[in-house]
Structures are given as structure tokens and as C-alpha cells.
């Protein structure tokens, strides 16, 4: 009997281990401080690297004098961009020329392009000494004008961030979907608005870190790093270093202290420590300081939308046109991927088919951007939720009513959107209603109205977001049709070892998502064996060859893709076990099954332990039946079929496999004098699809909600007019703590994904739901003050200033 419930193939009995609240096995060692994080790794003779960084936003490097560094005993090497320019190739760019010609190295070459950019790296015997020496790097700069704002960087006379590409444009494209002309012709009204998203960062509690070592005998560089896309980064690093992949081994330690997208573009540091270890013939370690992490450890894209929305007077949206300008900072790195990734959620959660988007991504003198939890969709989701509110305001309708008018209806599922995304199920209207009931929407509206005359500022906001997961790399071909990546894939491997233990492994990395527990549950289901009995090997090692080129943990893909690969691997292995058992037990295979590490006959009741089968399979191989190879090892590589696999001429593609959604509702109260914002209630509803482990799913949802709340109300990377980052440490870049985090009510309306084999949806990112609901709630609260919000971040100070501006006018 096969017990796993999959939507492909026959429906099976209910799951036994999948979906169970099994306690997280990884937690046991972590509560004892027995994890193995990158900074814990001590290779003998390790040297330490530190950066000297730019103190300006944009400046030509006239001269760098590093001689003083060597006055400190223990300093072994100092490298600058000048040296790297001749020894490394610039990193590969995703975009085609002209912006594809942009030259990016691990250290600034010729000029610095953002505040905090590394200009020199010092290697010393001790991290304290490396920092001492970094202070002694003497750089002579010639200041250049900065450009910080996305729109300004498009102006004729804007300073150029990279002169050799002739403009500040990284990439531009148009999505002309449906027929917006007719939609706008039919409309009763047009709403125009500007929506901006602000710059913040993923700031995992553990910063980026890596240790490189070089083995002269084999000429192999081994890097231990926290990189979350190791096999995507490996070719970039090897190409820059000019070495083949066989000369480079990439290891990710079993424990990574969070990532949230912020551990992808660290390949610049990995390249540099690799370069240095080859020269110095000793291990070289670099661990970002928090200040460096906030300054360049991956910022979220700042985006400006100019939107026109066409609607009927009953609130039905007919079409929308927009121009989006996306500011990706000084180096694109993983960009311009973000310039197409938003299109995973083109219509948001709404049934709108006539959409025109002109998208431009530009450079500026700010830190590099890249994936940050909810990468590129956060901004687009936010835009929709702001526009829905703008429409409601214009029509004098309740914002929830406008949403009900536009939500995609359940009978249209799976829903093929205007850009060929296939939304894989869910009942949006029913969930939305349940959310509002749980929030007690009506009660809060009444209280709001009743308390306004007393000067109380209570506001209610909702925001629905699509949290698309398991990306299809083919969308990058919209940017560069020759870019050598498409689809997605990952590996699962299961063995029954010589002692009869079931051991599993995948190509993913883990940054706190509890893969060992959840993946063991999948294997347990196939082998009908207690998940506790399934061994899971943590950590990533490129020479294990348990990887696919897309392996890693990003884009909410692990459960969906690696989970499926593992399921297939387990299923295939089970067949082989049964085949061997058939000959040992002398019973027909159709009578046999596995339970609790034993093969048993459903007819005779006879049993043999898995260990018995294993011993025949591995060592007593003379007993193997004809045609069966030794070993009990199964390796499966899974590549999902996205249906609309490749972009068409209108940039339409199904760019992820699953599209989970969540809807957030927030009640806030604004203090009319201090303008402090307090969350009174926050409720979330979501559809994660088949749940493998509820503890893990809930954990991801709470974490994503924290990130959204913190981004909306607190975290903000503020640059002054000269391009100096003013919020570069936790004193000024404030992430919320336990006293700021409100209680949450989490609801789920679970339906199986119609696209993924296990029915699971990727849910790790959360789509930035709270950002929309909070901004909408705050704006609602301050209605009596007539304050209009534009940005995705609001502080009490901003509210005070906006109110003051109103008073002055």
C-alpha cells in the first residue's frame, strides 16, 4: 500500500506522518548551544580578513596607500581593487549589454559607488589586528556627485554610477497584457496614485561568513560559507577566479543563523577569501560585522510606482497601467532578476486581466539590493493594496467591499492569470470573510467612529498578498534570452544503509526551516516508519554530488521541490527493497509492504527486518536476484513542469509553481500627540497547502509577519543627501523586539496545491502582507488629520512631520 496522498496518481489513505505536529529534532541541539555555525569553524592556522570601507557615497579613488598597515605585527597581506582588476575576471552579469558590460569586483575598482563599499581587504593573524590595520588604509578620494533616487538617476544630467554603460539603466521591459485601452475606455473612473517602497534589509541574526582554504597538492579551494544558493554562486565564483568547478568545493555548515534572502550575493566575499587563500596558502576567514551587514549585506529594492487604475463605480477594477522605477543600488549582482520576479504576482489576488506595466530598473549610489524575504513581490503586492484603498476612498466605499468585488473566485481555480501564472487553488473570498469575522471588523469600525469625536485615532487596514514559491528560472530569459538557467530542480537521496537505517539527504541548505524534521516526515510516510527513525544528513557539500544546479534554500522552494525529489527517491527505493525482499522471503511482491523498518507480508504475516534486506543488498550480494544491482541507494532529481515554461513575446510565463496567499488585517491606534503607532490587533489567514509540519508552517508565518511589521513601522535605511548611510547599526536601524511584537492570531484555510506533487505550497516568504495592512491601517487612523501616506514605512516622526506640513498649509 502506498499511503502518501499526492494529487497525481490515485488518491491514497490519509497521511500518517505528514501533517503531524512532530517536535523539531534540530531544536534539541540548538537549545544546548551545540549547533555548528560558520563562525564556530576553526581550521588550524586560520587567518582573518577585514575590510577598509568607503566613507563616501561616490568618489574617484586617486590613490590608496596601504603601507601603514604593515607597521602592525601580524598583518600579512593587503589587497585593493587595483590588484584584483588584473587578477580576477569581473563577475558575470545577468543583463545583456550595455548594462551587462558593467564591471563588478569584490573590491572597489577606480571609484567607490556607495557608502561602505569595501576598498581594501587586510589579512592578519587575528581579527583584532585585521581591524587595526583596516583603519590605517589611506585612501585619497576625489568626490563625485551622488544620485540616490531612482527617478533622478534617469534624468539627463544624472551622475553615472558606471560610466562605461552610458546610462544608469540596468534593464527595462514592458508587459502589455490583455487590452488596457478598452478597459480604460469602459471605465467609470480612473484613480491615479504614486506608491513607493522603502529600503530595508533582511538582517538575519547571524551575519554573512565564510572560510576558504587551499590544498596545494590537489589544487582545490574549499569554501565553507553561509551561501543559500551554493550551486548558483559556484559558477560565478569559479569564473571570476578562472578555475574549473572541479577545483572548487563548496560547503554550507549544518546551521545557518537565518538568511531571508540576505545570504545570496555574498559570493563577492567568497571570491575574495578564495583568492587570498590561494596566495597565502592558509585558511582565510571573513565574518561580516553587523555594521557591514546592514551597509552591504543585501538591501531590498526601492521602487516607485506611478499607477492609473480604471474601475467601474461599483468598485470592479477593469484595468491598470503603471510605470515602475526600481532602484537597485550600485551593483546589480542578483539583479535585474527583481525586475521580472514581481511578475509572479501581476494581478495580486485580484481578477484583473488588462494590465500594462512599464518596468525600469536603475542604478544609484546606495548599497546593492537583492532578494530580501518576499523579493520583488512585496513591492508589487503593496502597490495593489494601496491602490485598492485609493479606489475605495475615491468611491467612498469600504475598502473591504472593494476587495470582495475583485477577488479571484474559487470556481476559477486553478486560475490562469493575465501573464500565464497558474494560481493553484484556494478560496479567497471565503478566507477574507473569515478573516474579517475573526478580526471583528464591524466592531472595530463602530469603535473607530464612536471614539473619533474624543480625538482617538483608530484605524483598520487589510492587505492580501500572493506569496509565490518555487520559482521558474526561465523568467530570467525575459531579461537575457541566452542566460543559461531555466526551470528549477533539486535532489533527494535516500539510502537504506548496511545496518538497515533509512538515511535521507537533499540538495537544500537550511537556515532555520527545520528541513531535517519535515523531510524525515516525507520519507517516514513512504516507509510507514516513525520519523524519529529516519536519519537526515544536514549540511551541503558540493563534492557529495547531492545537488542540482538550482539547489539551495530560497524562493520558498525547499518543501515543494526538494520535498518532491525526496518523495520520489524514497518511493523508488522502497520498490527496490521490496524486490530484494521478494526473493529473500519468497513471496510475491504484491503481498509485501514496509512498516517500522520491517518488510512484512500482508498475506502470510511473515516479517524480515530492513537490516536483513540491506545486508543482502550491500554485502551479501551473491544472494541478490538476477538483474538487481547491489546497494540500496536512490537518487532522484525533480524538475517541475510549470506548464507555461518559457516566456512568450509578451513576457508571459508561469514563473513559479505554487502561489500561496495570505491576508492580513491590522487594527492600529495612533497617539494624537506623540504619533506613536500601536498595533491593537493583528489577524492573518493563509493557505499553505498540504502542511507537512504545522509547527514549521506556523513558525514561518509568524516570522514573516514579524519582518513585515518591523519593515513597515521600524526598519529603514536612511541615506543623507551626500549618500552617507545614517542607519548603519542597531542603534539607528531598529529591528523590533519582544516588546514591540504584537500578539498574532493565525488562521488557515487549507486546500491542496493543484500544481505541486505533494499538494504543498511554498510559504517561507510571506509576501510582505503586514506592510500593506499596517500602512492602510495607519492612513485610516489619521483620516481626521487628512494625512496621505505614500511609502511602505511609517514612523511616528514621519506622521508628526506630515501633520506639521498640513498645519502649515
Amino acid at each position, binding site marked *: 500500500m502506498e499511503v502518501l496522498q499526492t494529487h497525481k496518481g490515485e488518491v491514497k489513505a490519509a497521511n500518517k506522518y505528514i501533517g503531524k505536529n512532530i*517536535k*523539531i529534532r*534540530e*531544536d*534539541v541541539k*540548538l*537549545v*544546548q*548551544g*551545540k*549547533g*555548528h*555555525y560558520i*563562525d*564556530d569553524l*576553526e581550521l588550524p592556522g586560520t587567518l582573518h580578513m577585514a575590510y577598509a570601507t568607503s566613507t563616501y557615497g561616490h568618489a574617484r579613488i586617486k590613490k590608496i596607500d596601504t603601507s601603514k598597515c604593515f607597521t602592525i605585527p601580524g598583518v600579512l597581506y593587503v589587497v585593493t581593487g587595483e590588484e584584483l582588476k588584473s587578477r580576477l575576471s569581473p563577475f558575470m552579469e545577468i543583463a545583456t549589454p550595455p548594462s551587462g558590460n558593467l564591471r563588478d569586483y569584490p573590491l572597489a575598482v577606480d571609484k567607490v559607488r556607495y557608502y561602505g563599499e569595501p576598498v581594501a581587504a587586510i589579512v592578519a593573524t587575528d581579527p*583584532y589586528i585585521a581591524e587595526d590595520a583596516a583603519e590605517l588604509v589611506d585612501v585619497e578620494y576625489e568626490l563625485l556627485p551622488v544620485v540616490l533616487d531612482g527617478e533622478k538617476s534617469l534624468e539627463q544630467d544624472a551622475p553615472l554610477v558606471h560610466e562605461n554603460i552610458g546610462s544608469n539603466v540596468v534593464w527595462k521591459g514592458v508587459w502589455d497584457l490583455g487590452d488596457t485601452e478598452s478597459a480604460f475606455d469602459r471605465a467609470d473612473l480612473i484613480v491615479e496614485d504614486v506608491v513607493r517602497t522603502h529600503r530595508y534589509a533582511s*538582517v*538575519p*541574526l*547571524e*551575519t554573512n561568513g565564510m572560510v576558504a582554504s587551499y590544498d596545494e597538492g590537489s589544487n582545490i579551494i574549499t569554501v565553507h560559507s553561509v551561501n543559500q544558493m551554493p550551486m548558483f554562486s559556484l559558477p560565478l565564483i569559479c569564473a571570476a577566479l578562472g578555475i574549473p568547478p572541479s577545483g572548487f568545493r563548496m560547503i554550507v555548515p549544518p*546551521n*545557518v*543563523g*537565518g538568511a*531571508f534572502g540576505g545570504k545570496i550575493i555574498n559570493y563577492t566575499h567568497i571570491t575574495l577569501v578564495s583568492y587570498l587563500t590561494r596566495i597565502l596558502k592558509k585558511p582565510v576567514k571573513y565574518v561580516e*560585522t*553587523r*555594521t557591514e551587514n546592514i551597509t552591504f549585506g543585501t538591501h531590498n529594492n526601492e521602487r516607485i510606482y506611478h499607477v492609473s487604475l480604471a474601475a467601474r463605480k461599483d468598485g470592479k477594477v477593469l484595468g491598470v497601467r503603471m510605470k515602475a522605477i526600481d532602484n537597485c543600488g550600485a551593483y546589480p549582482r542578483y539583479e535585474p532578476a527583481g525586475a521580472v520576479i514581481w511578475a509572479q504576482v501581476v494581478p495580486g489576488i485580484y481578477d484583473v486581466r488588462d494590465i500594462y506595466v512599464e518596468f525600469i530598473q536603475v542604478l544609484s549610489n546606495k548599497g546593492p539590493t537583492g532578494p530580501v524575504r518576499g523579493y520583488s513581490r512585496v513591492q508589487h503586492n503593496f502597490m495593489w493594496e494601496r491602490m485598492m484603498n485609493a479606489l475605495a476612498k475615491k468611491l467612498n466605499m469600504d475598502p473591504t467591499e472593494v476587495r470582495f468585488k475583485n477577488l479571484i473566485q474559487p470556481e476559477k481555480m486553478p486560475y490562469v492569470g493575465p501573464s500565464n501564472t497558474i494560481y493553484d487553488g484556494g478560496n479567497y473570498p471565503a478566507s477574507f470573510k473569515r478573516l474579517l469575522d475573526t478580526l471583528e471588523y464591524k466592531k472595530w469600525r463602530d469603535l473607530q467612529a464612536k471614539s473619533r469625536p474624543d480625538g482617538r485615532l483608530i484605524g483598520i487596514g487589510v492587505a492580501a498578498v500572493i506569496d509565490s514559491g518555487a520559482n521558474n528560472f526561465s523568467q530570467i530569459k525575459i531579461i537575457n534570452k541566452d542566460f543559461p538557467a531555466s526551470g528549477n530542480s533539486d535532489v533527494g537521496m535516500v539510502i537504506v544503509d548496511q545496518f538497515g537505517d533509512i538515511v535521507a539527504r537533499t540538495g537544500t541548505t537550511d*537556515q*532555520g*526551516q*527545520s528541513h531535517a524534521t519535515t523531510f524525515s516526515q516525507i520519507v517516514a510516510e513512504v516507509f510507514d516508519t516513525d520519523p524519529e527513525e529516519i536519519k537526515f544528513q544536514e549540511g551541503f557539500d558540493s563534492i557529495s554530488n547531492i545537488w542540482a544546479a538550482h539547489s539551495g534554500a530560497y524562493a520558498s522552494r525547499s518543501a515543494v521541490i526538494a520535498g518532491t525529489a525526496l518523495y520520489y527517491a524514497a518511493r523508488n527505493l522502497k520498490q527496490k527493497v521490496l524486490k530484494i525482499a521478494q526473493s529473500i522471503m519468497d513471496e510475491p511482491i504484491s503481498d509485501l509492504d514496509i512498516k517500522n523498518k520491517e518488510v512484512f507480508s500482508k498475506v502470510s504475516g511473515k516479517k524480515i527486518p530492513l537490516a536483513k534486506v540491506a545486508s543482502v543488498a550491500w554485502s551479501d550480494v551473491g544472494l541478490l536476484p538476477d538483474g538487481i544491482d547491489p546497494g540500496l541507494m536512490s537518487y532522484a532529481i525533480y524538475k517541475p513542469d510549470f506548464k507555461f515554461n518559457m516566456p512568450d513575446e509578451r513576457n508571459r510565463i508561469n514563473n513559479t509553481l505554487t502561489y500561496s496567499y495570505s491576508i492580513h488585517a491590522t487594527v492600529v491606534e495612533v497617539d494624537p500627540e506623540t504619533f506613536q503607532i500601536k498595533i491593537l490587533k493583528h489577524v492573518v489567514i493563509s493557505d499553505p497547502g498540504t502542511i507537512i509540519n504545522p*509547527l*514549521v508552517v*506556523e*513558525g514561518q508565518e*509568524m*516570522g514573516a*509577519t*514579524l*519582518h513585515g511589521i518591523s519593515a513597515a513601522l521600524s526598519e529603514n535605511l536612511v541615506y543623507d543627501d551626500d549618500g552617507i548611510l545614517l542607519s548603519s*547599526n*542597531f*542603534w539607528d536601524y531598529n*529591528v523590533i*523586539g*519582544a*516588546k514591540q*511584537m504584537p*500578539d*498574532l492570531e493565525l488562521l488557515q484555510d487549507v486546500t491542496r496545491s493543484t500544481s505541486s506533487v505533494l499538494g504543498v505550497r511554498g510559504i517561507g516568504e510571506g509576501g510582505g502582507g503586514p506592510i500593506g495592512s499596517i500602512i492602510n491601517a495607519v492612513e485610516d487612523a489619521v483620516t481626521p488629520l487628512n494625512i496621505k501616506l505614500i511609502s511602505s514605512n511609517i514612523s511616528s516622526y514621519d506622521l508628526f512631520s506630515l501633520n506639521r506640513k498640513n498645519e502649515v498649509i
Partner: protein
Amino acid sequence: MSGKQLVNIEINGKKYSAEVEPRLLLVDFIRDTAKLKGTHIGCDTTSCGACTILLDGKSIKSCTMFAVEADGSKISTVESLATDGKLNILQNAFWEHHALQCGYCTPGMLMSSTFLLSRNPDPTEEEIREGIAGNICRCTGYINIIKAVKDAALVMSAETGKEK
């Protein structure tokens, strides 16, 4: 007095002595000299609490003290909580409530909570939030941590009740 100084620090009942530079931060002594890697570093500004330990019974941020200043004192780190691999009540509550994901903040959270419970065996939710206000977690949203501490307090008081 320039140059290195001899310091003796007792960590989790074991004595460590070493000649160190005065500027060596206590957290580096714990991690690099005593090789106890459970205590983590998460910031530059005494903000995150990943480095929290108990110094003579009181929670402190070990990144904001010089090792020479800890000479002669007794320190407990996360490694002291379990006995022979058996989790203590608080650790068990963290496991039970999945009060962690990546686990990077966890040692600091546990030490702050240990200190809180040592003083206040029955903290309110508000007191728990105050007790861990100096510890940043980027993964969990704090809610499960608060539940775990509350639950640990209940279990502890039930156990002391039994003993009586």
C-alpha cells in the same frame, strides 16, 4: 600595565586561565579561548543579546565586557543548562513550543530567560517581554519564546510544589 595579562575565569564549573590582551572581549574569551561556541555574536552595539551569559548569576552581554574584568568570576553559558544531554525545564519548553528556528539567538534567549526565572518564578507575559527585551530574534516573532518561558515557569513551580 601594557601587554598581556593573566586571567582566570571559571566557566560552567571549569577553570580557564590564559594570558590575554586587555582589549579581548569576554565573548571572544568564551568562544576562542574556552572554545565554548554556544555563545554567539550578532551585533556591534550591545543591542542583540546573542552573547548573553550569566556573570556571577546575573545576565550580561559578554560582548560588552573585557575578559580582564571578568578575572576571578564565575560564568555560566548555554552549555551549562543541560545535564548529560538531558534538557532542563526551560530548554525543554523551548523545544516543546518550537521557540526557535535558526537557533542563533537561542543561547542568549535561554540565558536571559534563566536569569528572569531565577528572580521571578512566575512572570507575567509583560514581564517576560521585558526580560527578553535585550535579545533580538529575527526568525520566530518572539511569540513562541514567550509561551515557552511562561510554560517553563509553570512546570518549575509544579516541580517545586511536588518537592515540598
